[in-house]
């Protein structure tokens, strides 16, 4: 078993060996993944960070290339490739990484995403608590689930026991000399929120048009909080930040709630917020299942926690199938 002090010493050691460590940091009321300056910044007590590992793998905005029309030049923009250890992600966030992997490194490879993934080690700290928005067990995961982790630390008597999950984790452990632990993990916390996903996919297959879409999206005000904080949502837009002749082309998160989502010069295929909310549910619980065989939801509950107007995805799923 490793105590918190042991862990902080480990992190310091990894930083010393040249790894950039991204971990949950508390700033006033908010806990978010940040590049760690010092190990002591790590917060061990939160349920879940506000942001997700998308901030590492698929950041909210990035420059693709710079251009200059007069000089007829294009200069691709790549950040320096550096090994990153994500420390203290929760099992739901780690599981979400496997979903994004299947999508962004599946049939077509997103080279930027792939490069960041290659350089990223996921060291998860499993959950010793859950809040009322958590529903990972309903999505087939769990508070101690190792899916997506390279190494997982399971809570044990006030500290953590570390286990290797993947080959990448094994290589990392031997490279940095991380000793793995024997010893038993504490029991997993119970989750209050539970739904069954039985029949949801079948309902979605049949009900692209249904009056229920308007009902379930009633409270939605078409902001992007649920999307932007979702660990599996991955739509993006391409925009130029341009002057008269020079500019940069950027990739920026986009969101199906927004009125302008997929709006084209001649046509808006999703007029009305219920059609856009339908896109969100369909994308997660039908299209992704059709495409990669997995649901694009890990039950992290952020969309429930942060929706300013109480749209509750588990309630929506149950109301649709009802």
């Amino acid at each position, binding site marked *: 078993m490793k105590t918190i002090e042991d862990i902080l010493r480990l992190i310091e050691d990894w930083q010393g060996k040249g790894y950039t460590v991204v971990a949950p940091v508390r700033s006033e009321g908010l806990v978010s993944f940040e590049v760690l300056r010092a190990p002591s910044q790590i917060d061990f007590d939160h349920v879940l960070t506000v942001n997700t590992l998308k901030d590492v793998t698929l950041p909210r905005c990035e420059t693709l290339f710079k251009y200059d029309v007069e000089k007829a030049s294009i200069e691709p923009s790549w950040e320096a490739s550096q090994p990153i250890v994500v420390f203290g992600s929760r099992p739901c966030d780690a599981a979400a990484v496997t979903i994004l992997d299947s999508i962004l490194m599946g049939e077509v490879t997103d080279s930027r995403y792939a490069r960041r993934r290659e350089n990223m080690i996921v060291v998860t700290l499993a959950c010793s608590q859950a809040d009322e928005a958590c529903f990972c067990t309903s999505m087939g995961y769990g508070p101690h689930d190792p899916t997506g982790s390279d190494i997982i630390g399971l809570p044990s008597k006030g500290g953590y026991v570390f286990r290797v999950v993947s080959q990448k984790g094994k290589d990392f452990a031997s490279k940095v000399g991380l000793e793995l632990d024997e010893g038993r993990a504490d029991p997993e916390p119970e989750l209050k929120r539970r739904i069954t996903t039985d029949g949801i996919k079948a309902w979605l297959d049949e009900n692209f048009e249904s009056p229920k879409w308007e009902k379930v999206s009633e409270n939605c005000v078409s902001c992007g909080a649920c999307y932007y904080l979702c660990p599996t949502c991955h739509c993006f837009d391409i925009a130029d930040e341009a002057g008269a002749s020079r500019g940069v082309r950027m990739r920026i998160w986009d969101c199906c709630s927004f009125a302008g989502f997929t709006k084209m010069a001649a046509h808006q295929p999703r007029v009305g917020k219920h059609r856009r909310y339908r896109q969100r549910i369909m994308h997660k619980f039908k299209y992704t299942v059709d495409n990669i065989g997995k649901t694009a939801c890990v039950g992290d509950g952020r969309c429930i926690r942060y929706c300013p*107007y*109480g749209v509750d995805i588990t309630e929506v799923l149950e109301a649709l199938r009802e």
Partner: protein
Amino acid sequence: MRSEQEAQLRRRVSQLLEDGTLKVVLGYASGFKGTRPLFVQDTRHVDRLVWNEACEANLTGYLLREPLKEMLDAGNRIGLVVKGCDMRAVNVLIQEGQVDRSKIYLIGMVCEGVRDGSDFSLKCRNCRVQIPEGCDETIGTHTELERLEGNPLEDILKVKAMDLAERWAYWKQELSRCIKCYACRQACPMCYCQECITEKSRPQWIEKAPTLSGNIAYHFIRAIHLAGRCVSCGECSRACPMDIPVDMLTRFVAATIEEEFGYIAGEDVNAKPFLGTYRQDDPEDFIR
């Protein structure tokens, strides 16, 4: 008083729906964060309506959004549960010609203060509209009301007291967290532009990306666009998932306008919009 108000609210909404006065009533139900909006169309659902300290949200913005906008456009009359402070937003929308007063039915709740977590909301400090005015009916008694002490501008004064470098560092830190999810804009009852400047691409006036400069451009433009219109309801900050006190910017502008011109947005439904009027004897030259 609150539980009696809640019971009366349910009775009244039931009656108003049953006798066909209203097509739908927007009020509060219990939710993950205490309460959430509830659209009641069916009298069987009136028991889901609640009235308590967690009814902090200002629901006025829904009047201009789906599905209420379509219902109003189709000629239906709609009920809205409001607090005295929410009335200011309703008034601005009426002043600006966005809402036809005869198409909405306002159920005013006498308010003992709402809470943001465990504390009373900042907007409740020194509240002068605990008894809503201008509603179609008011629920609650006027006795036993205790005015909450304190200054609703407390947070702004704190930032204003910082020196320039400190203040810049403060806003840099706050606004760099912004992910441009636009929850603030979508929550704001006054942000009803059909196309927000952030969405314009020909020309693209401001950076689309949620970089610090792009975020500053967005929030500062929003603050200026809300000059004389922000009713200090705090809905933008309440909606922000990243805990950014964006309402400080718009409330600061509102406080400046009150100080300089004695104008409080939405206080008087018959007043002209602040930036929509001028005086012949205005001391400034540029206006004439």
